């Protein structure tokens, strides 16, 4: 039973981690929190659903298509909305919450009811010891690792990635030395939407998809990012996995009524005890 609970929580935790990455990417660049992240995750799941139903394609291609579409959506949202909001953190927070509500209700009009998601990752069940793991969970973990590796490669080895890091470290200086700052910010939003949407497709086959699926996941992903260190990519991944596993253990051994509590107790304790998170830095100044 223990291994089952830990493995189940690990897969869910990966989803928190990937959605949390979206928070981290935007925060690193703008020092602002985009609260529409959970709703972008939800919209990504429905985008994946629609594509998979209308135009069946191999799963890697589906993930890439959804990621690319969400990337473009992120660019567009940045250009049309976020760019006008991020001059002020309060305005940005309220604006992103509003955007999330709009996304939720637009999807609600089209899909008022929960919908089953095609089993794009197969429906085998893998037995490891006494634990039984749906194939989808395994793919969630694999894809999370792949995403992190890809992001790492992007930030470390590409010119664009280095530009993004430079903007994250110090936008003003980066701008002064010729980095296109507004393009970098646009790309950041694109990337954050892309990872959230991919997470939506990853989790879709495990559960049903519904218009309200992003609310709680978004909050938990935010808790994961803060817990791990909202300016640290490895920290967010760690935070997501820890929250996923701990809440499942609490749900299994204490009471599932307190399952949701875990993420938020962790969030609160982190904020009081170590506001910069496990792996976050107090003043992230890089040269």
């Amino acid at each position, binding site marked *: *039973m223990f291994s*089952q*609970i830990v493995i*189940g*929580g690990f897969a*869910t935790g990966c989803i928190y981690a990937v959605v949390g990455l979206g928070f981290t990417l935007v925060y690193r660049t703008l020092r602002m929190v985009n*609260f529409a992240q*959970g709703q972008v995750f939800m919209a990504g799941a429905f985008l994946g659903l629609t594509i998979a139903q209308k135009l069946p394609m191999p799963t890697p291609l589906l993930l890439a298509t959804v990621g690319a579409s969400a990337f473009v959506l992120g660019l567009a949202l940045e250009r049309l909305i976020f760019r006008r909001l991020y001059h002020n953190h309060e305005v940005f927070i309220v604006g992103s*919450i509003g955007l*999330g*509500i709009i996304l*939720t*209700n637009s999807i*609600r009009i089209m899909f*008022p*009811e*929960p919908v*089953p998601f095609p089993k794009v990752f197969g429906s085998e*069940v893998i037995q490891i010891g006494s634990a*039984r793991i*749906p194939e989808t969970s395994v793919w969630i973990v694999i894809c999370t690792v792949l995403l992190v590796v890809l992001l790492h490669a992007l930030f470390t080895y590409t010119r664009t990635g280095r530009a993004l890091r430079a903007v994250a470290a110090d936008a003003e200086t980066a701008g002064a030395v010729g980095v296109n700052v507004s393009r970098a910010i646009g790309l950041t939003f694109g990337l954050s939407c892309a990872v959230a949407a991919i997470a939506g497709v990853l989790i879709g086959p*495990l*559960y*049903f998809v*519904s218009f*309200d*699926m992003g*609310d*709680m996941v*978004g*909050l938990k992903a935010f808790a994961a990012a803060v817990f791990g260190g909202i300016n640290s990519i490895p920290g967010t991944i760690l935070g997501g996995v820890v929250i996923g596993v701990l809440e*499942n*253990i609490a*749900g*299994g051994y204490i*009471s*599932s*009524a307190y*399952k*949701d509590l875990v993420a938020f107790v962790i969030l609160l304790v982190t904020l009081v005890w170590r506001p910069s998170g496990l792996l976050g830095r107090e003043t992230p100044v890089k040269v």
Partner: protein
Amino acid sequence: MKSKLSGFAIAATVLIGTAAAHAQDIKLGVIAGMSGPGTSYGIGIRQGAEMAVKEINAGGGVKGRKIALVVVDDASNPAQSVTAMQRLVSEKVDLIVGGWGSSQVLANMEVAERAGIPYVVVGATNPKITTDKNKWTFRVIPADSDQAEQIAEAAVKRLGMKRIAVVHDVNDYGVGNRDVFLASLKKLGLEPVTVVSYQSNDKDFTAQLSRVGSSNADGLAIFGTIPAAPAMMNQARDLGIKARFIGTGGLANENLMTLAPKASEGTVLTTLFHEDVDADAKAWSQRFVKEFSGAAQPARPILAAYEYRAIKTIAAPCLASAGTDRDKLRQCIGSFKGRMFGIPGEVSFSKTGQLQQQSVFVEVGNGAFQAFKGK
């Protein structure tokens, strides 16, 4: 914080009048969750009302007065349900037939009670709805206390279950069912092997199901609704749990088979309506499915049958004899006694406003609800 915000920001009510209301029209309020987790039930309630009212109006109305429907969506949310009910009160409806979800009805019936409008509940089963406190609220579907007691007895005596695990929603429906079920099991000399709970919006049930799996149960009673219940069934089978599922009215929804096509096979439950009970029920079902096939939402007959019968068999005759005087209307509804298609024998209201009747047992087979004939 945010989910709460978005909850309130979602428009609380949707108003759909089927016809422009005239001064003399009788205003019939319908409240239910037509979005959110209760959508598939709420749609059924709306369809039943539309069909009944269409037929009554086509036949000349009630003593020449047409019935105008006022439909409000409470988004399956107790807080919004109160707002939606206030909307019906301010629309000055003559009576209300509807309501889905025990938590919502327990919240919104207070509004109807205070306003003094007869309220016939069709889609909520918590025993606390019909007590000696409610004056204006009636209920036509069986309460959990009846359903849970009957399914406990069937589990032990007809299905021969010896190790029963219970999974329940922490809402009023789930807890109400659990309490009665456990008390009934005790009377039958059985203790559950494990009792675990979940929240309506939960998606991942591995934690709960791991406990069920390690308890080696041969029966799993699920007291919850769509979509959590079918999600749990799918995950239970993935986890290798072979226990047979049992449940009450919360599972009695066609979406159970859509969302858990394989996993729901063999589930035995008490339901509220099945077309094979009598010929009139069969004829009505066929008419109903014909009416709504090809509509934007698939036909959802179970709660529709209650809504339809509550309007046609109870409300319309009372509107004809008592008019729209609210107090006379209330007294007329309370003294109803007679036959309703799909229910064996005569039915009548108890002192607390509960319509007393026998439950119908069904089993999921070949992707549909079949009359349960097992021993």
